[in-house]
Structure formats: C-alpha cells, structure tokens
C-alpha cells in the first residue's frame, strides 16, 4: 500500500490540479492493474460494502489507548472524521506490513462474514503494521467514503494523459457498468463495456458578461432574449434509447437526476439538447441552495426526490436524428426545438421562455424583476448565431441582476462540520432597530479560509456566552451580506426574510456604528 499512500500524500500536498494529475499518472505507471482498477472504483464512489462496524473499531481503539469515552468523543469532534480520529489515536506501529491495495480490499471483503473476534484480530494486527497515513487509508477502506480532493474530471484527465484516449469517452467508461473483478484495466480504458457513440457530448457554447450599452447591440429584432437560470447547465443526450446527462464540467451526472432520465426517455426520436437543470417545485424555480441538496449524492432517496424535484429548462437543440445542428442559426434551432416540444410536453421538461420586447429600455426592468422568481437575470442571444465551441464574444451575452446587499454585524458564531469542524464558519448577523440589534440573516459561505481562521480566533477571544455549540460574540465585526431576494415576513422577529443570504465580504473598514437599520433594510423591499 506504500505506493497508494504516497499517491494520497502527493495529491494532498498540492492544490494544483495539474500536480494531482501528474501524481495520478505516475501512480498508474507503476501500480499493478488490479490496484489501478480499485483506485478508479474508490475515487468514483464504487466502494465495497463495509466489513466491520465503526462502533466496533471505536471500542477497540478505546481499549488499546485506555482513553475514556468522553475524551474519545472530544477528539472525534475536533477531527471531524472517525477513520482519521482512530488513526491518530492509535499508538505507533511495531512492525511493517506491505501488501498491494487490491489484496487489502480482498482480505477486507473476506472478513465480512467472520466473527467479531476474528475481525478484531485482523484489524488490530493490521493497525499495528501500518504507519499513520496507511492506517487512515485502511480505515477508509473499511468504512468511510474516499474523499481526497480528486474529482471524476481530474481522474479522467489523468487517464487521458496516460492513455491518449478522449477524456469524455473515459468519463463514460469509468461511470459505466463495471467492477474491478470483471474487467481488465485496458478494457476499461478502451471502453469495451460501453458504447461511446451514444454518449459523446458536444462542447458547450458559453456567454460573456454584457459589457456594452444595450443600444450598441443593434436592432432588437436581431436578438432572442431569455431568462438566465442558476442551476446546473446540462447537455442531455438521447441516442438509441440510451439517455446521458453531461454537466458543463464534463462530468456524467445521469444517475443524479432519475426523473429527467425518465422524462427524456419518453420522448420520441434521437436528439441532443442544452438546458438548465433546476430544482422546481409547484412550478416555481427554487434557489441553487435547494438544488445543491440533490448534487453528488450516492443515493437519490425517494424523500429527496419529493423534497427537491428537478426539472429542465431547455435552451437549445444541437442534434436531431444524428444530424449536427450546431452550424444552423439560433433562430432555426429554436424553431426545431419548438417543433420537437410541441408534441412532447411534460411538467419536467420545459422550453426556456423567449421574452417579447419592443425596445431596449424595457429590458432593464425585466432584468430587475427576474430576481422575484429566482432568475439570475437575462440572456441575450443573437438570432443569427451558430452554436459555438466555448466562449465567443459578441453572439451570446449574459446580463445578471445586481445583488442586493446590506451591512450587518456578527452576533453569534457556530463551528462548522467536517473539515471545518475546528473553525467558526456559521455566523448570525444583525442590523440596528432603534437602540437594539435584531437578527436578519444566518450565513455560512463567501469568506476565504484565511479570513475564517482569523475570525475563529477572534470568536475564541470575544465569546460572551456559550450556548451549546453557539457562541454569542461582541457586536463588533461588520460584514456585507448579499442576498437574492427580500420580503416582509411575520415569522421572522425582524419582520423581513432574506433569500439566500451570503457573506460578500468582511468590512474591516466599518464598525457597528455603520451597519444598516431595519428601516433601511425594509426600504429594499419596496425598491426591489
């Protein structure tokens, strides 16, 4: 496992994607085929079932270290990861065991039916023969997911660099139906188990931010204007009755959206469409925050499907019955799209609405109103434009709404979870109401790690009151809070509800004297 452990170290010792790719390529050059297959399986979430319960592992470590349970739990809460906590608490190993990755995995899977005593003997013997990092990997092989900062895309890019095979094909291959015990490394890479002709995507056409006056765009009737949506830009492919969903990050995300697959499967013919995957409930588009709950899940549960249903707003059509349409004009493609969906209407698949307007002046108001139904603004597409590869200036523009912002002071701080468990990452903010402060928002994103570290130290020093994991702090640090919408609310003490608030920046230049008042916040409702 030394090589695998070194690979993990090499990946973790850099935040440069290219360095990670190089480390993976180096590993692929020396590792046995079975190990390579298992690496791909582990990094893409295909892990074997858990042979030993984590509670057993925890009790063994407590027995070995003679630590009381409360101290074990303190340690766990400070580390935030059980496998790592166990690895850190164990005493140094007394001997060395060296076996390739796939042997470890085979042994662990043989362990599953054995008795607790036999399991204990094997695990303790292994712990005693592995150094800290290998021990962590061993614990991860037994239980937790293998999250080490390598995305599927990074893995695919490494395999492409190694083999010279097209990255999108490799993406389909590794996502496809295979197990390390039923395929060879070469066959996996060559895609013997898939039909890439069916999944092959087109590069996305992208827009620039609008950088000129609308009047300078020319005649209004040369432009197709649509709403811009903040979801997952996706390319949905249906060829030979197979459906694939590609994200803009060139990842295959088909399995994450079963309802889209079902809806698309019912449509007639073969086609490739471009659209936005959005969380849509009761015909209302939800915020990206909600959609996020659906992303990168290992299992899409029934409850999740009900809580956050997704749909697709279709922007464009790139292929019909094996004919590439990308050289046709936007106008022609749009009419093809309308033809196709005239017969195929569905609640889940909707055409992106084309906005009717007569002169440029109307658009600004439309853009500002977009926020009220969770649109990000407008898209302006030249009717004569082809579907470009990537970004090309002049044909497609995005014109976003200006974010709403207020200045508020931090009054509570709470520690984060997972890798941020040692830092205060979740804050509650207040504005002034007469001579008091009133809570208006809670937010947990938008700051750099360095800022979070600094604020955490400040919280440690300035906590007035402990209340479970929450610290009440001196009202001193001022932040600019951006949000997507604002409305009156009876449920909130402040009388207003902010939609999707986030920290835009830490205003070190401002003091609590400079924060907004509840009146100035409410004024935004009328303005927006």
């Amino acid at each position, binding site marked *: 496992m030394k090589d695998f452990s070194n690979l993990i170290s090499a990946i*973790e*010792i*850099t*935040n*440069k994607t290219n*360095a990670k790719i190089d480390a993976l390529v180096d590993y692929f050059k020396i590792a046995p085929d079975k190990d390579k297959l298992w690496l791909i399986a582990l990094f893409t979430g295909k892990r074997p079932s858990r042979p030993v319960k984590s509670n057993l592992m925890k009790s063994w470590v407590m027995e070995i*270290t003679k*630590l*009381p349970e*409360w*101290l074990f739990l*303190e*340690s766990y809460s*400070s*580390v*935030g*990861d059980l496998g*790592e*906590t166990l690895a*850190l*608490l164990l005493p*140094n190993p007394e001997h060395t065991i060296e076996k390739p990755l796939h042997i470890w995995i085979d042994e662990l899977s043989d362990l599953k039916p054995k008795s607790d005593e036999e399991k204990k003997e094997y695990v303790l013997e292994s712990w005693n023969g592995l150094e800290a990092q290998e021990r*962590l990997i061993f614990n991860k092989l037994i239980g937790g997911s293998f999250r080490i*900062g390598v995305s599927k895309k990074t893995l695919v890019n490494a395999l492409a660099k190694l083999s010279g095979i097209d990255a999108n094909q490799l993406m389909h291959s590794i996502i496809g139906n295979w197990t390390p015990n039923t395929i060879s490394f070469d066959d996996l890479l060559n895609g013997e188990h898939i039909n890439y002709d069916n999944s092959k995507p087109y590069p996305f056409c992208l827009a620039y931010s609008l950088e000129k006056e609308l009047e300078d765009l020319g005649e209004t009737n040369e432009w197709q204007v649509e709403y811009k949506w903040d979801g997952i830009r996706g390319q949905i492919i249906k060829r030979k009755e197979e459906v694939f969903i590609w994200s803009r990050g060139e990842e295959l995300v088909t399995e994450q959206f079963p309802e889209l697959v079902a809806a698309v499967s019912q449509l007639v013919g073969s086609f490739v469409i471009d659209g936005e995957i959005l969380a849509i409930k009761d015909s209302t588009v939800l915020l990206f925050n909600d959609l996020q709950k659906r992303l990168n899940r290992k299992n899409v549960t029934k409850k999740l499907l009900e809580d956050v249903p997704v749909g697709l707003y279709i922007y464009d059509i790139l292929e019909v019955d094996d004919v590439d349409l990308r050289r046709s004009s936007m106008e022609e493609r749009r009419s093809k799209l309308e033809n196709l969906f005239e017969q195929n209407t569905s609640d889940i698949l909707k055409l992106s609405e084309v906005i009717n307007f007569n002169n440029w002046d109307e658009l600004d108001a439309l853009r500002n109103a977009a926020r009220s139904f969770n649109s990000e603004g407008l898209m302006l597409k030249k009717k004569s434009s082809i579907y470009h590869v990537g970004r090309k200036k002049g044909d497609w523009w995005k014109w976003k709404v200006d974010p709403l912002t207020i200045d508020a002071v931090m009054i509570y701080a709470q520690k984060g979870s*997972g*890798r*941020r*468990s*040692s830092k205060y990452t979740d804050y509650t903010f207040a504005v002034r109401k007469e001579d008091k402060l009133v809570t208006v928002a809670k937010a947990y994103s938008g700051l*750099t*790690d*360095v800022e979070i*570290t*600094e604020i955490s*130290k*400040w919280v*440690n*020093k300035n906590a007035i009151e402990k209340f479970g994991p929450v610290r009440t702090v001196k009202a001193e640090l001022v932040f600019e809070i951006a949000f997507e919408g604002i409305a009156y609310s009876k449920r909130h003490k402040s009388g207003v509800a902010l939609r999707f608030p986030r920290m835009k920046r830490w205003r070190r230049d401002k003091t609590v004297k400079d924060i907004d008042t509840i009146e100035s916040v409410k004024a935004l409702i009328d303005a927006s």
Partner: protein
Amino acid sequence: MKLIKFTKKGIYCIPGNFYLDPWYPVDYAVISHGHADHSRPGNKHYLCHNDSKAIIKHRIGQDISIESLGYNEPKNINGVQVRFFPAGHVIGSAQIRLEYKGFVVVFSGDYKTQPDFISTPYEPVKCHEFITESTFGLPIYKWKEEKELQTELQNWVLQNQKNNRTSVFLGYSLGKAQRIMKLIEGVDDVYVHTAIHNLNTAISGSGIELPETTLLKYDFKKADLQNKIVIMPPGLLGSKLLKKIPNAATAICSGWMHIRGNRRWKGVDAGFAISDHADWDGLLAAVKATEAEKVYVTHGSQAVFSKYLNEIGIEAHELKTEFGEDELAQSEEVKTETA
C-alpha cells in the same frame, strides 16, 4: 499565605508583588518568552531570560526597563526567589519557578518537550503547584521527531525544485521561522522576510548562532529566487509580495496541520505538523515529572486536559486566559510587523 493569585491582569505573585506574563500593563512583569501573547507592551519593568532580552526589546521598544537572568540563576524579589528553567518552546523561552518559604510554584509558559536543536531543551522542574499550557491538549496530537520532519521538509523542497517551483514556508517569525531554517539548513539558499530578518539580527546580536539566510528585499529579482527557499510570516498569505514570488509552492508549518481537514484548507499547497507546543504525551509527561500536588491548566484545551488529569488522580483546575490562543497574539504580531 497564598503565593499566587489569578487576576484580570494575569498571574500575580502576592508576596513578590509582580506578575507573570501579564495581559495588561503592570509595574513589574516577569516574562516567559518573547511571543506577543506573553510579553505585552506597557509594563514599567521587565524580567526575562538572557536570550529573550534582545527579542523583547526589538518587539516592544529599545528603551524599556528590562533585566535578564540565565537559566537556573536565582533572583530575589521581595523575598520570593525567581529562577528560569528552559521551556524548549522558542529561543529564550523559560518556565518560571517561584519559591517562597519552601513552597514552589512553576509557571510553564509555552513549552515543548521534544528538542528542536535551536532552543535550549525543556527541563522538568519539581514543584508543589504547576501552571501548564494545553494548546494541543488532546490525545490526537502526537508530533513526529525532528529527524522525520527534516526529511519531510527537505523532500518537499527537492520535489518543488524538480517541478521548477520556489518553496515558500509560512511560519511565525519568532520560533517557527528559526526552526524551519534549522530543518532545511544546507538544502539551498534561504530568503527570509524583513520581519524574520530583523528578529534574526536581534537574536544573533545576543550571541546565538543561526543558520545562514538572506534578506528578501522588496524589489528582489525573480530569477534570483526561482527554485530557492523563502520563509515569511503567515499573515502574508495572499499578499502582493507572495504573489510576486515566481512559481511559489506554499506550505504552512503549524501543529494544527496534524489534522487532515486543516491541511486541506485551500489557501496553501502543503501543511506540515510542526509545533512549538507540547503534544499530548509531552503534556502528560511534563505534568507527571513536576510531581505537583495541584495543577492549573491554561492556554488552549484547559477544560479537556484538566478533566483528564483529575480522572487519572492529579488535582487540576481550569484557568481562563485573556489571550486564549497563541496564534491570536501571533496574528497581532504579524500585523504590527507588516505595518
């Protein structure tokens, strides 16, 4: 009568009428070491170890009233005998031993039990009452030996050089910087930020030999720095100066880097668990070696560590500190240095 009292200004020695590492200005301050959370400005008079004198004057002011002692050298203040013992934390760091009418209290200041070959190694001191720090007071903290750290750091630099990258270490200017200098001594030219350079000058001025370094001038030539080694304070992460360094690979050296989640903070390339505080076993060994009847725990994980000590039969009490975390004060340090 009681020898010490815990006050808002810090630990007060009643018969001696002086404070240990006071947080607010007092007439007479006995100082454990030069870090900003231990030696604060504004005191009328300072007493510290010989090797800390130049450091404290450099940071607080050349004109302060300050005297110093060697390790184990006694000084009588109002009938209380004060002696310093090595704490192994940074250059000049000391545990402060107070003796009055046969009763002995030791204040550890910050300490680490493992030798770093740059500060005088820690020595246990027997006492009746022991006031200990607890920055890394959890059993998950277990430091690697200096030899292993040396290999890790040097390999990282060599790997960077292979990839045509300049190695930039971020570490506090007092303690961490000198330790990094020692760990990577001889690998290649080492450039240090002004703050570190000035401190090094002060340290060398009092006769302590440090590995050779070059001052990183603000208008440095990029070609000179390529593939070399740079050390700068952590406050400069994200600074223009750091951005100017060609193909920089950055690393933070801190005990917190022992936890994988902290290492993976996206701000830097690498994190090395190098600490100037005692790890769990170090803290336990130190407390036991004092044979103290009563232990006061401060500076970090006081709740956890004191609870554990009580469970294993050592009477311990939790002490609150104004400047809870070492890093806090050190971030202040960086601010003043870069200003």
